[in-house]
């Protein structure tokens, strides 16, 4: 298992004049829980968009499960599941119907669909509510449904882009419970971004910190603290990324996904 399951090599993404991701390289081992931290607009979502084939890198090489992300898109796509930053569910349909669409999109054989959907909805405790419209779901239920959906095709890697944003503590804990169990039971690799440092500290095996499009440090939370001669992950994080507040500029088509940072006034 020495071959990394995710590998980025000198990846650059420019939007016109602005460089959102500036020559980053990193590797994630199979089965690892990997956290990607950074201030708003540091390049986290742009990196996830590139890893998940939605954005084409300006230059550099991205490998997922042995497949080149830009050249073997379909093989790369079959290797991962994703929970997007903004819920990507069809609200006018029921949870079950959403799962069926996903199963078809990922070519799950018809004979296996019903069983797999039942198993997953039970895993995230939504089986009883399978026939309710998604628009009647709470934020936490939607997230759980998205996690279940992302697991449908037995992906080797699960991407979670700020999966706990806007969720209460109970739901956050529950969600991370699922994720950790999955990682252990199925050896699934987890790649997630978050703004909650306590989550990264508690869950992640390894953490990368990105700022201004560059990876400024990688290691376990203990290593990061040691490296920066601080006590905690938060200390290390602030030491590495500074205390300035960032102003985000939206760059992407949909205005939600890809952000870059501009320096703002210093905090007094």
């Amino acid at each position, binding site marked *: 298992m020495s071959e990394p399951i995710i590998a980025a090599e000198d990846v650059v993404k420019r939007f016109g004049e602005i460089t959102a991701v500036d020559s980053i390289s990193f590797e994630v081992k199979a089965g690892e829980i990997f956290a990607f931290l950074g201030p708003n607009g540091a390049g986290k979502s742009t990196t996830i968009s590139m890893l998940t084939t939605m954005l084409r890198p300006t230059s550099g090489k991205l490998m997922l499960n042995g497949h080149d992300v830009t050249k073997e898109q379909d093989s790369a796509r079959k290797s991962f599941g994703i929970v997007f930053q903004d819920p990507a569910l069809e609200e006018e349909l029921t949870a079950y119907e959403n799962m069926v669409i996903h199963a078809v999109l990922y070519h799950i054989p018809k004979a296996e669909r019903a069983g797999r959907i039942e198993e997953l909805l039970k895993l995230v405790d939504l089986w009883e509510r399978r026939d309710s419209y998604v628009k009647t779901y709470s934020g936490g239920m939607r997230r759980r449904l998205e996690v279940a959906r992302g697991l449908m095709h037995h992906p080797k890697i699960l991407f979670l882009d700020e999966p706990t944003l806007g969720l209460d503590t109970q739901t956050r804990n529950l969600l991370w419970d699922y994720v950790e169990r999955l990682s252990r039971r199925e050896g699934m690799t987890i790649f997630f971004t978050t703004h909650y440092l306590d989550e990264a500290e508690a869950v992640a095996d390894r953490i990368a910190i990105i700022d201004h499009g560059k990876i400024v440090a990688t290691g376990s939370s203990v290593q990061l603290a040691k490296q920066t001669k601080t006590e905690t992950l938060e200390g290390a994080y602030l030491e590495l990324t500074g205390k300035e507040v960032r102003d985000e500029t939206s760059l*992407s088509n949909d205005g939600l996904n890809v952000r870059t940072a501009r320096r703002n006034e210093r905090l007094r």
Partner: protein
Amino acid sequence: MDVIYILWLRQMKRYVRSRSRVLGAIGQPILFLLALGYGLGSVYKRAGQGNFLQFLVPGIIVQTILFSGVFWGIQILFDKRFGFLKEMLVAPVSRLRVLLGNALGGATISFFQGIFVLVISVALGFRPYNWAYLLVSLLVMIALCLALTSFGAGLASIVEDFQGFQGINNFIIFPLYFLSGALYPLTNVPTFLRILSEANPLSYCVDAMRYTMIHQTHFGLLKDLIVLFITVVVCMAFAVNRFNRIQA
């Protein structure tokens, strides 16, 4: 095939479940039909042109399909801004199939809207010149539905927000509609209007509908069908080209 079907089915389910949308989309053309058909009917008759309702129905059906197509484009924009498009775009299926499933769904909805308006028109007293020719009208409607949903999908791929879409609506769709001869005959219109109408592909569609429904034509059916065919091909090429370039 499975993928195209499931994406089509999603559009159908959404449509059937939102009754207000069904009513809203049909209400407007019916209003046009009633207000203009009865309101201007007597003037039209006095001018020696016969029954205005007969004249109006083909144009109103085109209007229904046109506005339904625009509405559908907004739906794609919604998917783009609020997530579901991403779910479709990161799946291991080609963009072409995603586009086809969605566009066929949109086209089916528009077609049904057009049929509803046709049925209501018949209830209001409209009589086609020859029921057998009506089958050709249905084919023309299908072609128009395909052209417009493709156009809508292409536009939604380019435009970034709802205001932008609204602008296009005002600056493209309304002029296309009013210059198509849907509401008035193109014979004896001033030269500038005639030139604009002749440059408008929608005019030929209205004309084809009128020929097959009430046996009146301005351009001749052959010319109508050639223009319609070219329009469908161009719109589809536009949609495929733009949809392939969406990056999220």
